[in-house]
Structure formats: structure tokens, C-alpha cells
């Protein structure tokens, strides 16, 4: 067997793995392997002692090896000889690329080298298929991303992701600048399947362009917090893109029409729908969605996951949890009242995961018990700044039993009572769960 030291492809900014090495010396069986893979018209010349000529490895092998190398090592390898340099530029190696755009003033992370970016645009733009841009909080990085996008004219992308790793810098750009760059991709790709454009200034007209060119292929669209899109804009997408399986957007874009469009006969089964409900100003009013629209969704896509993230003030929950809603994953990112949690128990029969960031200092005993009773699918729960009496908590766990695969409770949540103290509650809970369990702790120093 050939002896190579291979490393899995790593993204930059991941944990640093020590030890450089890419390729080590030839092993005992090398000639055999190369003989088997030798092509008819190549001119391999074996040396006297049977060792292989590393400069003349077949392309298939080089490709395999290079695919395992992280980009930097691959670049080093490409400097070794002309043959390896050519291999470095094989189209297959340029199908996926993640552009990391960071400025030293705003990020600790390294950035993709500008020369490499130039090379990619020059030689590989027509090979790129799965592309993402990771951008830090500086406007320059967002601009650089748009620059690159505008030059991808020969590109037929399948996936595109615009990811802000800190503050959403795409929002600082002049809207037209961003839109024209994005439109280049929409128009040229024609087979976009996955698009992640959260926190960008995308607007209704550009969505129309997206739809006009990619309606047959679009499967995933993530556009949370895109303030320039209107409900009509997203409705256009739902109406035309019948293959859409995953959608993420803000609540203000959700409408009865949208849900009905997603449940129309021609539409495939929806798999995931993620909705962010965010309050811009205290006392904001939110519209409600009819129960019949949700029912249509469930009928059409019985297995779909509805993920809802709430970032509201306590008194803004008026229109929510009045009627049955098919939510499966529910997250309350701010304080949510006891009363609303009580309503959750009554209206969310499909609930699988519940995460409560904070509630306040009134025990949630009744509410939790009700959720255990009514939400028979519940398998994961997380409680932050809340209070639950130990007895009620044990009762809750008893009722849910082994179906609770994730039970993440901050230690401060549990209030000792006459039946259980903090030191023995974990035994009781572990007993009913069928595995060892402890609450989550925070350092107290």
C-alpha cells in the first residue's frame, strides 16, 4: 500500500491541527498500485529500485489526495512541480469553495488570500457550484463579497450562502450595489437549489429575478431578517417554486396566502419552515394566522417541522397561541410569561422541543405538567432563568419518561421543597429518565 499521511479537508478558522505534513515518502508496495492504475499512453518510468515517480502519479490519485488536503496544504503541494500544479487546478477541486472575507481591524480570523481569489475568478468561476461567503462585521468584507459575486458570470451555482459571522455587514452596503451583485448570480445560475441570504438587503424585484430563472430547482431558501422583502415578494416565490422544501423567514412575511401556496397540490411536501418573530419596538402589533391555514399545511405536509423563534416583550404575545399551531421547535429568546407558557401547553400538540430563556420568578409547575400531558412528542426541553419546584419537576420527568432525550435545566431553576433538595433531585430525575442526569451549572466564584 502506498503510504500517505492524509488530513481531512478543514475549513480555516477551525481548531488548529498541529503538524504540517502532507505527503510522506513512498512505501514498500507503491509500484504495484501505480502499475494497476497506469494508463496506456502515459510514460511512467520506474526507477531501478522499483520506487515510483511521484511527479507522474495519475490524475485520479492526485485528485483523491488533494481532496483530502486543506486548501493551504494543497497550495503548497501545487508549488512542487508542474504536474502537481496542473492537478491543483483540476475542475473537480473547485466545485466547492468558501470565501472567507475578514479585515484585520474587525476580525481575528485569517482571510482567503486576494491572489487566490483572483485566480479562482480567472480560472475557476465556471467550475464553482457550491459557494459560500463568510463575512466579518466590516463593510469592506461585504463589499469584497459583492465584488466577487458580480464577477461570477460564467457560474452556474447550485448553492449560495451569504453568511455574516458577526454584525450583519451586508446591511451596511448600498442596496443597489448588493442587489446587482446578487442578480448576476440569479440570472447566470438557472439551477440554484439552495440559497442562504439572511440579514441582507434583498428585495422583492430581486426575488422575482430569482424565481424567473430558478423556479424549477429551488429547494431551500433562508432569508430571515431581510427587511426589504414584503409578504407579496415571498408569496411570489412560494407560488412559483414548487420544489421548495425549506424556508426560513420573519413573521411579518408570513401570511395565510403563503401557507396555502405552500400547501397547494403542485407543491412538494415542505420539510422545514422556520419563522423568527422579532419585536422592533415595544408594543408592536403582530397579525395572526388563521388556524385553517395551518391545518392546510399539516394536511399537505404531515411531517413538516415548524421552528419558531420568539424575541418579543412579555406583553406582545397577544395573537399567539390562541389556536392550535403545529409548531415543533419552539424557542423563547426573552422573558415569556407564565400565562403564555400555559397557552403553549394547550395549543401545541406537535411540540418536540421547547427552550425557554427566561420566565421570571413565579414557578412554572402547572404549566410544565400540562405540557407533559398534552405535548406527547416532546423530547427536548431547555429552561434558563425560570423557577420550577423540585416536586413538580420530578412529576414532569415522570410523565415524559424516557422520551426526553435532551433535558437541559439550569441548576438555579430548581427550587427545593419539602420533598426534594438539590442534592437528591438528580437521582430522582435520573431514575425516571433511565440515564444519569445533572442540571446545568454555572461557575460560582
Amino acid at each position, binding site marked *: 500500500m502506498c503510504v500517505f499521511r492524509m488530513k481531512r479537508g478543514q475549513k480555516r478558522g477551525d481548531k488548529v491541527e498541529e503538524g504540517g505534513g502532507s505527503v510522506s515518502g513512498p512505501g514498500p508496495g507503491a509500484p504495484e498500485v501505480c502499475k494497476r492504475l497506469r494508463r496506456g499512453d502515459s510514460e511512467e518510468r520506474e526507477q531501478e529500485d522499483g520506487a515510483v515517480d511521484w511527479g507522474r502519479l495519475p490524475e485520479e490519485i492526485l485528485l483523491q489526495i488533494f481532496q483530502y488536503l486543506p486548501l493551504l496544504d494543497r497550495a503548497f503541494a501545487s508549488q512542487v512541480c508542474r504536474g502537481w500544479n496542473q492537478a491543483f487546478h483540476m475542475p473537480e477541486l473547485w466545485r466547492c469553495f468558501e470565501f472567507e472575507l475578514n479585515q484585520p481591524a474587525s476580525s481575528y480570523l485569517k482571510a482567503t488570500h486576494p491572489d487566490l481569489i483572483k485566480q479562482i475568478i480567472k480560472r475557476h468561476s465556471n467550475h464553482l457550484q457550491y459557494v459560500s461567503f463568510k463575512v466579518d462585521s466590516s463593510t469592506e468584507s461585504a463589499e469584497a463579497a459583492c465584488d466577487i459575486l458580480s464577477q461570477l458570470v460564467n457560474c452556474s451555482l447550485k448553492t449560495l450562502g451569504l453568511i455574516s459571522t458577526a454584525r450583519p455587514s451586508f446591511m451596511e452596503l448600498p442596496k443597489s450595489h448588493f442587489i446587482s451583485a446578487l442578480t448576476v448570480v440569479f440570472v447566470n445560475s438557472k439551477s440554484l437549489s439552495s440559497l442562504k441570504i439572511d440579514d441582507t438587503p434583498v428585495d422583492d424585484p430581486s426575488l422575482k429575478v430569482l424565481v424567473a430563472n430558478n423556479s424549477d430547482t429551488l429547494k431551500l431558501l433562508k432569508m430571515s431578517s431581510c427587511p426589504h422583502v414584503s409578504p407579496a415578494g415571498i408569496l411570489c416565490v412560494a407560488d412559483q417554486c414548487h420544489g421548495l422544501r425549506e424556508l426560513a423567514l420573519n413573521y411579518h412575511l408570513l401570511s395565510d396566502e403563503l401557507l396555502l401556496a405552500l400547501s397547494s397540490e403542485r407543491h412538494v411536501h415542505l420539510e422545514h419552515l422556520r419563522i423568527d418573530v422579532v419585536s422592533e419596538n415595544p408594543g408592536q402589533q403582530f397579525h395572526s394566522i388563521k388556524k385553517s391555514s395551518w391545518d392546510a399545511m399539516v394536511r399537505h405536509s404531515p411531517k413538516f417541522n415548524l421552528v419558531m423563534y420568539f424575541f418579543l416583550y412579555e406583553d406582545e404575545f397577544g395573537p399567539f397561541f390562541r389556536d392550535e399551531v403545529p409548531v415543533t421547535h419552539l424557542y423563547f429568546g426573552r422573558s415569556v410569561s407564565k400565562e403564555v407558557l400555559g397557552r403553549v401547553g394547550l395549543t401545541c400538540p406537535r411540540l418536540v422541543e421547547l427552550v425557554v430563556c427566561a420566565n421570571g420568578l413565579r414557578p412554572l409547575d402547572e404549566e410544565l405538567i400540562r405540557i407533559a400531558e398534552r405535548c406527547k412528542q416532546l423530547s427536548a426541553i431547555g429552561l434558563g432563568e425560570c423557577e420550577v419546584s423540585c416536586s413538580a419537576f420530578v412529576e414532569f420527568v415522570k410523565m415524559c419518561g424516557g422520551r426526553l432525550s435532551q433535558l437541559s435545566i*439550569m441548576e438555579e431553576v430548581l427550587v427545593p421543597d419539602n420533598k426534594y433538595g438539590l442534592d437528591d433531585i438528580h437521582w430522582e430525575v435520573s431514575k425516571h429518565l433511565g440515564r444519569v442526569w445533572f442540571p446545568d451549572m454555572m461557575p460560582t466564584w
Partner: protein
Amino acid sequence: MVVNSVHWFRKGLRLHDNPALQETLNGADTVRFLLESLEDLDTSLRKLNSRLFVVRGQPTDVFPRLFKEWNVTRLTFEYDSEPYGKERDAAIIKMAQEYGVETMVRNTHTLYNPDRIIEMNNHSPPLTFKRFQAIVNRLELPRKPLPTITQEQMARCRTQISDNHDEHYGVPSLEELGFKTQGDSSHVWKGGETEALERLNKHLDRKAWVANFERPRITAQSLFASPTGLSPYLRFGCLSCRVFYYNLRDLYMKLRRRSSPPLSLFGQLLWREFFYTAATNNPNFDRMEGNPICVQIPWDHNPEALAKWAEGRTGFPWIDAIMTQLRQEGWIHHLARHAVACFLTRGDLWISWESGMKVFEELLLDADWSVNAGSWMWLSCSAFFQQFFHCYCPVGFGRRTDPSGDYIRRYIPKLKDYPNRYIYEPWNAPESVQKAANCIVGVDYPKPMINHAESSRLNIERMKQVYQQLSHYRGLSLLASVPTIQEEAEPPMSDDSQASSSTAAVCNYTP
């Protein structure tokens, strides 16, 4: 044969249960505390016909000179388990050998020798507190503390003290070291062993009176510095952790008549122990890059925002009050630490925990290297398998902790006339209220520097992105994004004697 012995004080600034002097001179308050501790030590030594010798310079420069001048034959000091300490001490021990000086090192800064705990955990430090507790549960009790050095013991020794001792070897003042003092000597936390032991007694008295060893739930009162607080004294070694441990233990057993106290009684001490153990073999423990236990998170680099946080100008009274107390007094309650750490890192500003750690290092009296770095990693969800879903609201958390708003009024006097309804979010107060309170937001007090709902929404997405890449998990669950705690599924620990807390060994978790 005459033994000429030098005891090198580093962290253990006490005469009880002692064998070691800290050189990290950071913030002025920390230095003041340190100098007070040295003065106290000097005073105690004087009563025993000895003195403290403060020698300035690097140990590697100073010791050769002292070895010769004083004809030293023995050097003693307290073991320092931190990576930098180990390196420094190894060099000193080697040098001492060259000079024919015998070195004796004792481990008394922590309850256990961290290496022992590591050995018991299959040769790696426990990375969850549960695992750590399980191991400690199986260990023998920490070694009993030694009593205070007595007159009789010292009578056998003779210290050569010159007339101009104070000039050459006296404890320096803050001014001499280049710090400006406000001239205000009424500090909340007075340094020194004497003060530490007094506080210990008061602490125990209070526990006995309350007859309650449960962790007290936080009240508004807890936010203010307590006259029985002990953490800075543990950090500087003015109080021996073992003395604290055994005093607590003995009191508990006396009052409760039970065979042995639960581990939770020693919470504070064990957290300290946990971080010391985690850090001892990791010289990169205090940074993200190159730190094998730290998640690489794309934090933002924003010096302006960092300054606002550090100086208590965020526009969120809860955060600003905490940072003000920290700057003025050098101590804040642990829940207050959670609040400001979360705000700086994963909650709101998305700034690196390393920046926060450095600010705490400067301002916080009980921030030692291991505990400070470890806690910051913990609170920013950068290590130790933390769930990141719960975010402390800079308005709500404060309000729930202290509905009266007195804490805010004390540390941000500008806001004292705000009604309770608006004191945590003054920007929401109508103009009339602001005028009546004589404090206009944006003029007399800063506007809030971020929109919390927006920031927390963004940040939970960021954390999710990071964690999903780590565990190659592509699911929807917010909770399951955290990598599973593999420790719990590992084979049982090396010492399999008692079955008391063998919980960590057998369990089936769902990945």
C-alpha cells in the same frame, strides 16, 4: 549543621497552612490588596521576631545574589500549578541545585494536587463539573491544614534583620510602584491574612446562625459586597483553602450530625479546584487560538464597543452598574459576572472572551489566571460543553434580581430619581419622566449601545452555526447542537473502589 532557609512567598500570603509572591501587578486595586497583604504578613512576622523581605527583580536574577549573600542552604515555597508557574519554578529549582541549595515545595494553594485528579480521570483533566465532582467524591479528604507557626517554632530560628531593613526590604507603597491613589483608605476589601481569618469566623458564624447550608438564592442584598466574602483572600492565599474546607466541614457535621457533608457545600472551593486542574497542563488556557479545549468562534474585533463595556457606558443601567461596582470595589457577585460576561460575548456584543478576561484581570480582586480564564470560557460557551440557549437579558435579568433598583441607584447616581418602572430601561421612559428625573437619555446618560432583541437573535444564529460545524450536526434542535459529553460514556475511572458515586461510569445518552 546550620540551615539557612529562605521561604519564597508567591501566592500563599499567610502564615497559617503555608508554604509561597504574586508578581502580576495589574490594576491598582489588586496591587493595593497585595501590598496590604504583605504589610499584614510583615506585621505577623515581626511578632515572631522575624520580618518579611521584599526584594525587587526577576527571581532568576535575584536568587543567585541572595543565595550567595545570605549563605542559603534551603529554599522553600508553595507549589504553583499554573503552567507559567511550573516553568518558572523548574528554572529556579535547577538554579538552586547549581548553587547547592535544597528546595522543598509543598502543595497548599489547592485542596488537591491537580495531577492527582488528572491521573484519576484517565490522565486528562475533567472537562465537566459533574465528572470533576464524581472524581473528588472518590478521593480521600484533602490533607489537613497545619496550624499557625508558633513562637516556639520561630524561637529556634534567627533572622538577621538590619537597621535599615525597611529601606532595602520594606513593603513598597502604591506610589512607589507608580500608581496614583485617591487618598481614600476606606476600601471595601482589606488585604491580608488577619482580615481573612476574621472574615472566615464571621462567615462561619453566619452559617451557623442561619443553620442553613443550602446555596442561598440571590437577593438584591447579595449584589453588594459582603463582610464575610472570602474569594479575594483565597486567590492571594491569605486564607488557606484547606482551612476553609475543614472549618465548613466541621461546622456542618456538628450542626447536622450527619456523617459527611455533600459536595455542594464546598461549591466555591471546588469550582476553583476545577479550573486549576483544567489549566495546569495547558499553557494556552487563557486564549482561543491554539487552545485545544476552546471552540474557535469568529468573535468581532471592536475596541470602541469593548471600551464602552469596560467603562460602564453601555446605556444599559444593569450592565453599567455592575461594571462600575467592579471598577470601584474590585468584586461583583457571580451572577453579576454572568450578566456582564454574557453581554460582552455571546449575548450581545459578540466580542471575544479574552478581552473580557483581561479587563477582569485588571479589576477583579479574586481573578486568578486559571479561574478567570476558565470562567470566561465557560460563560461565553467556548468550552466545557455549555448549552448556549439561555441568554441573560440586560434589562430583565437585572429587574428580576433587584426589583427595587437600589443597586442601580447606588452605582449610577445619575439615575437615582428614575422610577422603578424605567430604571432598567431609561430610554423607554417618556420625556416627562426623564426630565423629572433630571437625566435625559442621550445627554446625561448614554443611549443603549445595541438593540438586545436583534443582537440576541443574531448571536444565537452565530453560535448555532459554529456548533453545527463542530459536531457535524445538521438538525433543527437548538439543544442537540451542543456536542455530547463523551466523558460520561468513557470507561470508569482508574480508582474503582467505592461505588458511591459511580454515576459517571454507566449511562446511556442519546447522541
